[in-house]
């Protein structure tokens, strides 16, 4: 039997990002935050002010062992976002490559702080 979960280690250069969406009625989807991996290895998040405050207090994962992650944890924080926000109501994307991030930013899809 082979292990289908085994994949080559992905390359996530600075600029890679995760977006977190709030799912609403019907097919409504609102961008809550975009967290981008920085050159110094940390992550920086922009978006809804309340949600960003949540993120900066840390997100905790239960699996495999309970641990809290902060934006300072960089890539691990982006991975944690994917695990923490996976309900039907708030959902984080996979880690996206920087080119897509730059493109999205330039088209103005990042919501400003409110």
């Amino acid at each position: 039997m082979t292990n289908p979960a085994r994949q080559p280690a992905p390359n996530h250069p600075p600029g890679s990002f995760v977006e977190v969406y709030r799912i609403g009625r019907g097919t409504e989807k609102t961008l809550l935050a975009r967290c981008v991996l920085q050159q110094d290895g940390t992550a920086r998040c922009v978006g809804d002010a309340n949600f960003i405050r949540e993120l900066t207090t840390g997100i905790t994962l239960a699996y495999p062992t309970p641990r809290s992650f902060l934006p300072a944890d960089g890539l691990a924080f982006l991975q944690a976002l994917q695990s923490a926000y996976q309900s039907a109501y708030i959902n984080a994307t996979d880690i996206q490559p920087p080119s897509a991030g730059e493109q999205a930013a330039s088209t103005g899809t990042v919501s400003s702080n409110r």
Partner: protein
Amino acid sequence: MARKNQNIHLRSSETTAPESLAADTFTETTKVEKMVAARPEKPRIEKWQYLEQKEIVKQSLILDDELARALVSAYTEQGNFDRVERLKIRLTEERELREGATTELMKIRDRKDADETAYRAAVVIKTKKEKKERLEEIEERGDLVVRNEVIKIEVGVEGARRHEAVFKPRDGEPLRYADDKLLGTVTGDQEPRGYLREWLAGFVAKALEREELVPPTVIREVGERIGSVQKWVDGELASEGKNWILKSKPDDLEALAALDYILEIRDRHKANFFIDEKGRVTAIDHGLTLSIEEGHSIRSFPLRLYGEKEISPSLRSLLESILSSEPRRLALQKAFNFAFGDEGTPLFGRFSQRVRELTKNGMFPKYELSATGDKNAFGLDIDSAENPQIG
């Protein structure tokens, strides 16, 4: 054991059911055989899977009915006809979710399994520094990220009426691997049971007479995939407001704390419960409850709020009635056996022990916090004087 192995390989090329499966599991072969014959399209799943899914749906319905009868009988004896009416509304919604035609609105995410190969090698390293480095490396690679598949659907009811709902399919639940070995699920099961846990949480909430804490949840097939279907919740998540503690009805938060404790929830963070404009609390995401493996920390913000606080007399009375009412206790025990198979009895034992502990002590236990930094995430207002509700 043969059945477990079959289920775990739902996505694999193994498709032939052992003879014992059909013999052990299904008693109404003639009836379901007819249903198979009546299927209009060429099946994408094997016949034994189809039969098994029908049986699971049927059993869940039987258990829901049994609990409903027990509750209606108790409410009627008490002369509490208002509660009977409220339960009827709930049961109607469950029936609608179970029977309505479904349409997919949105695939919210796909499933992702975990590869624990490197993790298992790292945890046995004795040097603290090296262990830390290796674990950080694994976290960054994302080997341990698991996700279950979630689909938003619409369920047609009557005429133009519709329910929006969340469908979590059984074959969309994540699995864990190490090397070339399948370890099971994140709850330690050998087959996906997260969808059954979603249903069971609603079942327990009903038995606790606080059914509004969990949205109507049923087990059904959507297309040819079995899973849980839970009514969509409109409202504000606790994480979206500024002070979830002040906005919530204390009775609801206290009841949710109790529910989280007896279900041994590992994942009740602020994005997993809603607070409506009247302060009513509704909780979602019960896939990480009642783990087969013991020793997981209970993580619940409401439970943390009520840690070492006295349980109100009304909630204590409700908790007592879970086990003291024989029809209710029996329905619960059957539901545990249905949801967890061979593990049902020990898990029901653990559940009962926790209920008894709460009712005997009359207090919530001390909240055991094991996640570094969780205190900040909980909310800075927790220990302050601006939180008069918890006294």
